[in-house]
């Protein structure tokens, strides 16, 4: 039983990280129908920015996270403006091809600039905490709390601010939003910035319990896709629920079944859903 709760706790940590990554992907898909295969690599870039903030600039953990979020938000803006916006009218596979181009570029950039080896991210919060018979590091608790704060903040922004409302409007009906005078390009740019910023925050949080490398974006991206398919492509609450479901499933499967196929769960879930619901769960419209 103790193991069960420990796994539950681990699932909560991993789920929080998955949620932050998947949220950004869902937000971009929901407003622009762009499956951004380079999202995982934005996350990777965020990890490196934070890493150098801590190890070279010595600006401390939280300022480094802020730096990563700001830098990645700018990268997101640039991507939207110069890569994805011009592709809106072409065949839809072109968006994926362009994302693959971006992904290769970012991965190589990281390899050339930062080297291909795995790096350990120093965290100031590595004290081990015991509570209710569970073992946790401070960092793990921070991850759960920080992810919760970010998600609540995002919800507040989307539901309670005017800017957030314009994003929702564009997500529901892009043409209609344009008709009532919403600058849809501005919304797209903003969504990309938020999405990349969230990825950077997630990366800073996870980097301190894991290793960072130029290829770290690859595993995470397909899991994030599995999550948003599970959560109903483009739905923000769906992405959060999907992230925790997947994390719990992986956590328990890793302990009770086999850790070899732990990573396959996400893809199995994705394949099963699309096999039986080819238009995805909770598909919009008819």
């Amino acid at each position, binding site marked *: 039983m103790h193991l069960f709760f420990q796994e539950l706790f681990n699932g909560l940590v991993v789920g929080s990280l998955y949620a932050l990554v998947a949220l950004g992907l869902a937000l971009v898909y929901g407003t622009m129908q762009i499956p951004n295969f380079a999202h995982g690599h934005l996350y990777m870039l965020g990890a490196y920015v934070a890493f150098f903030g801590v190890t070279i600039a010595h600006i401390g953990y939280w300022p480094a996270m802020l730096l990563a979020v700001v830098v990645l938000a700018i990268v997101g803006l640039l991507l939207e403006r110069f890569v994805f916006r011009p592709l809106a009218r072409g065949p839809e596979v072109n*968006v994926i091809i362009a994302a693959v181009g971006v992904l290769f570029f970012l991965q190589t950039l990281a390899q050339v600039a930062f080297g291909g080896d795995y790096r350990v991210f120093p965290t100031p919060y590595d004290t081990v905490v015991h509570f209710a018979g569970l073992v946790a590091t401070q960092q793990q608790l921070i991850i759960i709390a920080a992810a919760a704060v970010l998600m609540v903040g995002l919800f507040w922004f989307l539901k309670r601010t005017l800017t957030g409302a314009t994003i929702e409007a564009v997500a529901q009906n892009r043409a209609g939003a344009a008709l009532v005078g919403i600058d849809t390009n501005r919304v797209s740019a903003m969504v990309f910035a938020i999405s990349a910023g969230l990825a950077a925050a997630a990366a800073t949080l996870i980097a301190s319990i894991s290793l960072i490398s130029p290829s770290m974006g690859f595993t995470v991206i*397909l899991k994030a896709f599995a999550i948003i398919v599970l959560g109903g492509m483009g739905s923000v609450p769906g992405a959060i629920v999907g992230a925790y479901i997947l994390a719990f499933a992986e956590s328990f499967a890793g302990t009770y079944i086999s850790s070899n*196929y732990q990573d396959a769960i996400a*893809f199995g879930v994705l*394949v099963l859903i699309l096999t039986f619901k080819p238009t995805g769960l909770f598909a919009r419209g008819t």
Partner: protein
Amino acid sequence: MRRNLWIVAAVIAAVLPLVVPKTFYLQIVASAFITAIAVYGLNVILGYTGLLNLGHAAFFGIGAYAVALLQTKAGWPFWPALLAGCVASVVLGALVGAISLRTRGHYFAIFTAAVGVMIAIVFTNWQELTGGNIGIVNIPSPPPIGPLSFDGDVPKYYLVLVALAIAIAICALVRNSLVGRTFVAIADNEALARAAGIDVARVRLTAFMLSTLLAGFAGGIFAMYNGNLGPDQTGLDVTFEQLLYLVIGGFGTIAGPLVGTLVLVGISHELQGVQQYRFLIFGPLLVLLVRFFPYGLAGAFHRLTARGRA
């Protein structure tokens, strides 16, 4: 004119073993040819039918592992093993295609990516069968056909060259037939194709199976040529790389897959130190190509000639 270019290319490829100074270079060219066969497969599904199968490298893996395992574990000779490898990838292609083609739009790419990664995970984790990350080693050479022996780099190079020629011939014959034009037509205008009585689902499945056939064929040839095989040949990153070769060579064209693969593989091996940096150029180039040639270089060529005649 174009026919002459192909003849020149064939002659160069044929005399290459006589003129290259080191077998190392011959090996690079042969590896590029094998990759090109797989890229031809990707061209059928993406270039003709407009669908992006991100699990393509997994079908390459199915062909490769089938050939390697049948030879090393079941003691089959190469030729029937190659045939079985092709059959295996087409059968799996039919199954995956029948399910994945029911999805629409971006779901197709996401679905096939997930299937591909699952297959790659099986290759990595089914240690007893596939040897896990170490893979399969000592895959034997093909048995001789009459006086033709396939031991050594040069005979194997010619075998790869023949395989590439077969792949190109398949693509050219299909593309110029009614079948190939139907592929292109449904990518161009699905509703009209349906209105004209074309069973779009069936045509797409045909294209998907043909594309997995070429992937599996390439995989079988790869296992034979390399003599060893690991799961790193089957992942999503490999598909992405093949996609890069295809788009840069020009998707939808007959020469594109070969040109793209040779140029990119050639550049990375020939210019010392460039390999590491090449994606800094080719990544952005990919973005520019889809932006300025949204329908591929073939589409741009058509429009240019059409404008010229107008």
